[in-house]
């Protein structure tokens, strides 16, 4: 546990000095959500903004958290610091745990910023309880994205190796998970494929929350699956992170 905290502290200290990362991580979602606002303003008034804004906000957080975390961990490998950490005596589970812990705070802050902006820009009038549930969903998704980034990074030797995972994981999330169209209307195999992607469950919850008769119990399974993804990916990453050549 001590090692994990030391690594998390180092990750945060290091990122504090990395202005490029901080700009991308916090400013990019703010800008993209604003561009989304410009797009939505051009749509006819009968288009339900409520059904579009939050799922897209969730997708933006998902995409940026995944890609930036994956790249940063791969940089550890290409710079030789990952190998050095292992030889210095840090166990690989502590390295993964430390990264998770370090990004946990960042992911929370990023989802809070993106979420607050979406509420404000799209004039979404929700009760406090609804806002809280929505935030929890986006926050859980951002933590899943961090875990996915860490897991995918264990397969890559350099930054460019992450790129193939964008069309493999991120783009299908746009088409198959209910972000644009209801996934029930897709062929069964495509629907199943969409069901494998974590954002599907976040969008499910966000759509359900919009219903007037929403009860948390209706989406408990989706919440459980999102949490399951966090631990599942953590478990898988600890297996796939190689200690030796």
């Amino acid at each position, binding site marked *: 546990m001590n090692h994990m905290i*030391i690594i998390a502290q180092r990750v945060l*200290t290091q990122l*504090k000095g990395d202005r490029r990362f901080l700009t991308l991580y916090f400013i990019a979602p703010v800008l993209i959500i604003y561009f989304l606002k410009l797009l939505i303003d051009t749509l006819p008034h009968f288009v339900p903004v409520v059904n579009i804004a939050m799922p897209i906000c969730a997708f933006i957080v998902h995409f940026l958290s995944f890609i930036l975390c994956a790249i940063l961990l791969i940089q550890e490998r290409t710079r030789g610091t990952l190998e050095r950490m292992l030889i*210095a005596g840090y166990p690989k589970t502590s390295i993964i745990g430390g990264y998770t812990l370090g990004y946990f705070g960042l992911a929370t802050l990023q989802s809070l910023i993106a979420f607050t902006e979406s509420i404000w820009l799209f004039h979404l009038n929700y009760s406090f309880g609804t806002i809280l549930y929505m935030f929890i969903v986006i926050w859980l998704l951002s933590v899943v994205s961090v875990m996915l980034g860490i897991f995918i990074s264990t397969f890559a030797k350099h930054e460019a190796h992450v790129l193939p995972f964008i069309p493999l994981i991120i783009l299908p999330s746009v088409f198959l998970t209910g972000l644009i169209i209801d996934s029930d209307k897709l062929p069964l195999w495509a629907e199943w494929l969409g069901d494998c992607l974590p954002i599907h469950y976040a969008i499910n919850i966000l759509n359900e929350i919009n219903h007037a008769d929403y009860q948390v119990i209706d989406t408990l399974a989706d919440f459980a699956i999102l949490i399951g993804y966090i631990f599942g990916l953590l478990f898988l990453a600890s297996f796939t992170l190689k200690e*030796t050549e």
Partner: protein
Amino acid sequence: MNAIEITNLSKQYGKILALDHMDLSVPEGMIYGIVGSNGAGKSTLIKAMVGSLRPTSGATKVLGLDPLKEKWELRKQIGYMPQSPALYDDLTAIENILFFGKAQSINNIEKVTDEILSFTELTTRANDKVGTFSGGMKKRVSLCCAMVHNPKILFLDEPTAAIDPHLKILLWQLFRKLAQSGVTIFLSTHQMDEVLLCDKVTILSNGKVLATDTPQKLIELGKTKLTLTINGIEKSTTIGSTPQNLASELQKSGLDPLISSVAIQTENIEEIILSIMNHREEGNKR
């Protein structure tokens, strides 16, 4: 007791045999150099010893421990300085050293860090970000990270590559001080002149050990040896390498005193090592 014992070690990457049935013994407390050109297998060998590489076959024992099976016990006792600095540019020198040092339980780590910063003459830059450092300073920070937990063996992969001669001298002074304090230093280099600074040297080529000896013994291979046969009696003399030395030696045996200088071409250590490599490689081809 030997600090390192390697028996029949091989590592295959696809069709490439990076380490070819290598045997090596490194006594404790010496500066042991591995010299060879790029791609000779130096880094692969070091990685096998620090437990970052799984050999295809053979046995490795470092301080009597298996680097893979007994890695936790071994990692407390070894320090590793990779070829690239492997530091965090956005952290200061002291933050980097403390981070790598905290992987092990060290008493008074702050005090130890201050001492090694002073030892490597980095105290004045301790709180500057490593990203602002020159290549030579990064090497010194990297060395500090490798030695902060007071290891028994230091593995240094090309520690003096791409740094200026002044810093190279400084680093070698540091290595010597460490060796005098009982630390075994195992380092790799492709700079042949550094062979002279080691206590013992192994010449490596294409993953094979070509020769292992002290630098002195290797130099002797290149000394100018004069052999004169006078009345059927052969007389050999080892002399200095200046043309005047040779002329004066020959004058003793009747060379016209008017000849004051006889020039010969002698090999330097780099040429000797390259010649050994070429000779062995030609032998292997046959």
